[in-house]
């Protein structure tokens, strides 16, 4: 495959994974938790790097999951201490992120990590770091990594589909039926962390947030069917990734920035033109009888 084909494939995998994760994420009203986790995962990655002294996928993944779980746990604890939920998120993620930044500035120095890279990603370098796999041959490490993560996400989302559904819609009922609501919350946050870690290299922390939230929000404006929302969200994610790549290529600018911009453009179009929940629909047939 050509250089740009690899980049497009990688970006599409990010779009697809994030698009799928995003559906339950926004329905669970955890969008800002994803923002928090995407920042704190940096700390996990830095610590994994300091411990193992190398940039290894598995170590980063573990570090990222632990950082994500720590974030979710701290936010949960602060909330149980009666601190406004969003204030809790704000305190936790800025503090952990600051620790990550300081660690990078002081001990990791000019090694393989730097803050800007982590925040913006560097998808252009991805095709250069290849690994050799049986059957598939030489493929970029990040791409293979993303593919595995996509499989993990799909597996967990489908295996616990009804559990996600009920804990999202009515956690009180779920708890009364004896479902481990809190455990499922932490499992979900781990999945968000995994998605974030895998997408980090390609698009960076903040663009992950765009990819996680915006395509799902757009899909939510087009459909009232959960299954359809998954398909749409995944497609919007891939579409933003591909269009973003070409936009960046065209005006010669940041690829990840352009992808985030594209998710926004798709959202804007959905927000205005969606026949079910868009602005136009509301003006054309105002206030349908309930």
């Amino acid at each position, binding site marked *: 495959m050509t250089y740009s084909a690899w980049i497009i494939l990688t970006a599409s995998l990010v779009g697809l994974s994030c698009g799928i994760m995003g559906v339950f994420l926004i*329905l669970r*009203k955890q969008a800002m938790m994803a923002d928090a986790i995407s920042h704190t995962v940096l700390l996990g990655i830095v610590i994994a790097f300091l411990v193992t002294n190398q940039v290894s996928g598995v170590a980063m993944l573990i570090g990222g999951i632990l950082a994500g779980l720590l974030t979710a746990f701290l936010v949960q604890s602060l909330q149980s201490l*009666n601190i406004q939920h969003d204030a809790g998120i704000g305190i936790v993620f800025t503090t952990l992120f600051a620790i990550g930044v300081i660690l990078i500035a002081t001990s990791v120095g000019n090694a393989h990590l730097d803050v800007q890279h982590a925040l913006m990603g560097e998808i252009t370098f991805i095709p250069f770091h290849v690994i050799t796999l049986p059957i598939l041959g030489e493929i970029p490490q990040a791409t293979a990594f993303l593919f595995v993560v996509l499989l993990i996400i799909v597996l967990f989302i489908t*295996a*616990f*589909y*009804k*559990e996600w*559904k*009920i804990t*999202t*819609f*009515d956690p*009180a*009922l*779920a*708890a*009364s*039926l*004896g*479902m481990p609501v809190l455990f499922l919350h932490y499992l979900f946050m781990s999945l968000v962390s995994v998605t974030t870690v895998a997408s980090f290299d390609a698009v960076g922390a903040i663009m992950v947030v765009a990819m996680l939230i915006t395509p799902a929000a757009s899909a*939510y404006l087009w*459909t*009232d*069917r*959960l299954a*359809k*929302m998954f398909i749409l969200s995944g497609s919007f994610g891939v579409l933003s990734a591909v269009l973003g790549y070409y936009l960046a290529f065209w005006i010669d600018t940041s690829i990840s920035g352009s992808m985030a911009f594209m998710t926004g453009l798709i959202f804007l179009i959905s927000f205005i033109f969606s026949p079910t929940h868009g602005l136009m629909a509301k003006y054309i047939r105002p206030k349908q009888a*309930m």
Partner: protein
Amino acid sequence: MTNSIIKVEGLAVAYQKNTVLSDVNFEVKPGSLTGIVGPNGAGKSTLIKTMLGLHPALSGSVYFFGSPLSKVKSRIGYVPQRGSVDWDFPTDALDIVTMGLYGQIGWLKRPTRLHKEQAFNALKKMGMEDYAHKQISQLSGGQQQRVFLARALVQDADLYFMDEPLAGVDAATERAIMAILKELIADGKTVMVVHHDLQTVANYFDHVLLLNHTVIKHGETSKVFTKENIVQTYGGNMRWMGDE
């Protein structure tokens, strides 16, 4: 007493520094339909949430069928307040009703056609079969409440807790829900309902639990639901709805 289906002893609940419930003791007979009545903030929802383990208790114990909650969860159905969920969730009425079966279906398994049929029958019982595939956001408040009731029915529990099922519903829905509750009782089930409308208490419930941070009075409606007890529950400055 061996023939009580619920036994609550010395239950106390606190949010932060404020004690919401204290020294709550009562027993419920099988086959009874009990209205939990009390002023706003009296701890009515908190009481059932705590009994169902959804909120931690400061002290006290709760027994259902003579066992602690964890052993008998599948025999208990819960209908939360309608306003506690986001009705923009992208799914249809049938799917929501099917959720009532999720506890029985078990991990990693999907609802089968049989489950869907069960759910559909429950909807039918609530007169909602025409709305089975309707988006839940497009249902009226009363219809949404009926979906919640159908979801409880499908659980086929022996004991039900319902949090304000008659709040903000239309007259037809209110009648439909009451008919179903009477039917459940006739089938030998036990139901506890948080209720806000004092005027209908006497008609709807055979037992009443007057609650204001603790149990003021509990027993058969005809004996307990007296003006004197109600004034005691609501405090001196309440307006007795019957006088209006």
